[in-house]
């Protein structure tokens, strides 16, 4: 022990610490994020080096050359770090474990870009440019697919090379859930089912929709004292009304609680229908961009197109949101049944 301390003079220690720092720098990010595991690993390697030095020097004080010899026997920092990246089963540059998430990511991004292209197509057709609209739709979809595939593939190849696995993206709650499943002997293939009726979210949605709707309906808050165009006031009031209706419908769902799934579906359907009323409101602003309040202050022609584009995107999101809401409404009962079955698995 004393001989070891004699070997640990400041120069030798500095050399060893530098080597450990080089290893740490080369390690994958997922390991660097786990501080205690990282420190454990580096401590263990450091102890190993001092043991090796002791073996080489036979307990005598070590020279720097002997320290270097001991470190050389450990292998290069890259080689050690690469062993930690050797995780996952290789598939095609992307590991088998990350493949499902990769495919899911591609589907989501492509779906969003497809919907935006379709919305653009609808407006182009409405403007009377059918030929151009079709060409733009096809080229837009193609470009969207190519660019999104390229970017997402690069990201996942990078993650695979660093040895990332799906578990590295799990939240603490998901990890705890998995541990519980393991302890209960539930197989890994059981996916956690969440309750599709989230009362907290419904309360929040209801309150915010009611407040926002009330503000739009009454224009009770106008800090800059803007003088609105009467037509725009009507637009705000109609929007406010839709928000208030949505808030009331959400509140209705809160009152239903976990009962009457059919009741929930009816209220969700009404919410979708009233939400679609934003489309004609958006079209009014697109066709009359001068009613937008900024024109009272700044009279610049180019802003017309900006406002029109902004509301086109808004309508795109309304359509997209309606599609998603419709899917959630249709699958509500099946998701709730799966959630109850999953919950019973833990209670039995």
């Amino acid at each position: 022990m004393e001989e070891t301390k004699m070997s640990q003079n400041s120069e030798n220690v500095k050399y060893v610490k530098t080597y450990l720092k080089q290893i740490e720098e080369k390690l994958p990010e997922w390991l660097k994020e786990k501080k205690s595991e990282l420190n454990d690993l580096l401590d263990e390697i450091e102890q190993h080096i001092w043991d090796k030095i002791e073996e080489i020097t036979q307990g005598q004080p070590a020279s720097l050359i002997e320290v270097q010899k001991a470190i050389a026997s450990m292998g290069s920092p890259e080689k050690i770090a690469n062993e930690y990246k050797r995780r996952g089963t290789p598939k095609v540059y992307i590991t088998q474990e990350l493949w499902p998430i990769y495919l899911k990511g591609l589907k989501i991004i492509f779906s969003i870009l497809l919907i935006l292209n379709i919305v653009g197509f609808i407006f182009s057709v409405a403007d009377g440019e059918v030929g151009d609209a079709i060409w733009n739709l096809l080229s837009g979809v193609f470009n969207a697919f190519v660019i999104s595939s390229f970017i997402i593939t690069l990201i996942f190849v990078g993650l695979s090379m660093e040895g990332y696995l799906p578990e590295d993206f799990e939240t603490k709650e998901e990890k705890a859930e998995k541990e519980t499943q393991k302890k209960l002997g539930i197989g890994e293939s059981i996916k956690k089912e969440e309750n599709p009726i989230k009362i907290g979210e419904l309360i929040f949605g209801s309150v915010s929709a009611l407040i926002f709707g009330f503000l739009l309906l009454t224009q009770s808050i106008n800090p800059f004292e803007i003088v609105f165009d009467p037509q725009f006031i009507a637009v705000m009031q109609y929007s406010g009304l839709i928000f208030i209706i949505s808030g009331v419908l959400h509140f209705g769902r809160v009152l239903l609680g976990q009962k009457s799934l059919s009741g929930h579906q009816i209220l969700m359907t009404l919410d979708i229908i009233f939400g679609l009323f934003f489309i004609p409101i958006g079209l009014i602003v697109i066709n009359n961009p001068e009613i937008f309040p900024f024109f009272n202050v700044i009279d610049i022609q180019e802003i017309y197109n900006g406002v029109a584009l902004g509301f086109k995107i808004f309508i795109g999101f309304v359509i997209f949101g309606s599609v998603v809401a419709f899917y959630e409404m249709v699958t509500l009962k099946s998701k709730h049944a799966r959630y109850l079955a999953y919950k019973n698995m833990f209670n039995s």
Partner: protein
Amino acid sequence: MKNIVWIGNGEYCMIKRVKTFLPDATINSAEYRAYTENFESEILRGISTLAILSIIQKTGSEGIYGYALLKQIEQETRNILILEEGTMYPILKKLEKDGIIESKKQVYEGRPRNYYSMTTQGNRVYNHLMGFFTKLVESLKSIMGIDVILPEKSFFYCPNCANKIDLRIKEVRFCEACGLNIQDIQKISK
């Protein structure tokens, strides 16, 4: 006397440890060395893990720390199997994460060390893999011209799944891995 070329010095692969050779020797070719080094790495990858587990298994519940494990492997294999020391720890971490081994911190000679020992599941997996490896080597003896003598009085290899079964444990009737009734089979083979 022809020039002697020195290469390598106690590194991972066998061929890298060859220190002296004649200039016109086959291993003087860089391509040949690179190819065989690669091949040796492939062979050693799985065997190293098995060797590590074999040593850990022998230590029982006491366990063994990394450096001592390395030294024991070198000793038992007469310095034939030499692991690149730093890369042993990722292997140990992976085995720990897979539930094959477990670690506990203990202080030895004033220094905290991680002592590794087998888990119950690890022992099962190890027996299975050792059985497979043993039967594999035995099956290759005629192809490769090697002689293999199995310790038949101490171990039995399940004819169904090759699981290695310790006959020194009394009243082993069934294979732990596949459930095959081995008592009857043993009687027939006798």
